[in-house]
């Protein structure tokens, strides 16, 4: 029989060491995040004013101060909204098929494989594809919509993967409970499975949005550039915040570089606001609110 033992000094030391390493790793991981935020805020606030948010770069000379990113903010919002409009329904339906109907059959395995392949497409390639197909082959103009098409190629696999994971987390008990009440399968999915997975799916979609909102390369090839406000995403070049940052940062004057920082800060703020909105909707919908 062995007696109850004290923790040996060696074990205590190892515990401390492992704990310390974990904290160190955490700190190292957070450094870039904090550093990026710090830099962007520090340099960005200078020009993040009402003029910046409400004016375009039209008639702003090469060395002039002033001007703003209204055209780019508008462009980014429209492009991201359009690409979400394309990729969220398609992605969500694909995920529903994979989880609820595919049952690991041949078709669902093929879809899974191609979704994985799509995840790996470099963003510039999706831009090139839309440039070659939509603009050069079909003769469509540069437009925000062409950019949205390129972005939706990047967004779709992310939406499928995250929605699929969330749907798989919904306990089978709930599906069976609904079936046992005589609820048809499609209604069970719409009324029970999707609401249960709603918060997770919304978070996944927001992450996908955040990812594409910062894409520059596909926009360069499809949306082109403009310094003016173009409200119509289906016709003519638009601007986007990443493009704006890219464009301004390349200019040789300090005022332009300041505008680039402010643009970057605006982009971060937009993504953050969208995330907060998704969190809020998730909280508002969750049953925990009523408890």
């Amino acid at each position: 029989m062995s007696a109850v033992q004290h923790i040996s000094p060696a074990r205590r030391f190892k515990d401390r060491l492992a704990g310390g390493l974990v904290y160190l790793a955490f700190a190292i991981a957070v450094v870039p995040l904090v550093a990026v935020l710090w830099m962007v805020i520090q340099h960005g606030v200078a020009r993040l004013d009402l003029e910046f948010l409400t004016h375009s770069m039209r008639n702003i000379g090469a060395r002039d101060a002033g001007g703003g990113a209204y055209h780019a903010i508008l462009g980014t919002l429209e492009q991201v909204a359009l690409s979400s409009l394309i990729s969220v329904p398609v992605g969500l339906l694909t995920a529903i098929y994979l989880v609820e109907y595919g049952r690991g059959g041949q078709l669902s395995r093929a879809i899974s494989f191609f979704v994985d392949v799509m995840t790996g497409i470099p963003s510039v390639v999706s831009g090139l594809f839309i440039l070659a197909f939509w603009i050069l082959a079909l003769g469509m103009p540069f437009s925000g919509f062409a950019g949205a098409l390129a972005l939706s190629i990047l967004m779709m696999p992310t939406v499928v993967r995250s929605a699929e994971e969330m749907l798989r987390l919904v306990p089978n008990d709930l599906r069976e409970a609904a079936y046992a009440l005589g609820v048809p399968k499609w209604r069970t999915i719409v009324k029970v499975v999707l609401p249960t997975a709603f918060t997770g799916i919304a978070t996944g979609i927001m992450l996908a949005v955040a990812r594409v909102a910062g894409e520059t390369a596909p926009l360069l090839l499809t949306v082109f550039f403009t310094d003016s406000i173009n409200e119509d995403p289906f016709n003519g070049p638009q601007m986007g915040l990443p493009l704006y940052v890219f464009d301004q940062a390349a200019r040789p004057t300090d005022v332009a570089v300041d505008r680039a920082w402010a643009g970057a800060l605006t982009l971060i703020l937009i993504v953050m606001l969208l995330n907060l909105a998704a969190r809020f909707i998730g909280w508002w919908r969750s049953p925990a609110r009523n408890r």
Partner: protein
Amino acid sequence: MAKQITVSGLDAYYGSHKAIEDVSMTIEPASITAFIGPSGCGKSTFLRTLNRMHEVIPGARVQGKVMLDGQDLYAGDIEPVSVRRMIGMVFQRPNPFPTMSIYENVAAGLRLNGRQAKSKTDDVVERSLRGANLWNEVKDRLNKPGAGLSGGQQQRLCIARAIAVQPDVLLMDEPCSALDPISTLAIEDLMVELKSEFTIVIVTHNMQQAARVSDRTAFFNLAGQGQPGKVIEMDETSRIFTNPSEKATEDYITGRFG
């Protein structure tokens, strides 16, 4: 209204594995029928064939006949969804819908099937919750989430949800195995009350429970690992527990195996 179920020559499969073989029995209306037997002998599988829930599992299929008051539930043109509306089910683990309130949970069967008239729904919810002996405990918090109730209350909520759609038959798959003795007693009392309106079938591992609540008992067993389960004996509960005709039944209920 309570209906009679007649099963003849029923086999159930999971893929190529035969889980139960050649089950035939009559389940009397407005009574409680208990299924007992060792784990893995196919009691739950058989229960799930009665309302066509078995085939929900990928690869699962059924051969044989299940008649509900003379209507073949496995005839080619029968809609499984409509079968499940007539034959409700309560599961082993309480499974209220987490996104819905207590009220919405009970109304789920009506609402999800599209029938909605607020005042009528209110009546059904109250009647079902009273029927499940839960009304007094929850009437002041109908809008709180169902998942916030205790385990026993959740299970009674699930029973209320099942009886709200007015089924003819209520299937219960070990409804008390996750509950404490007090909640178990509450649900057993409830079953006895409900049997005037519904045909109740209960799977249980608790032989005292079968003896306490059921009118008739079926004993399931399997010849060995990987063999299909079969009904060894079915009779009046009092007879099964005092004077079974099969040796295996006696061995099981006296605790000699299983």
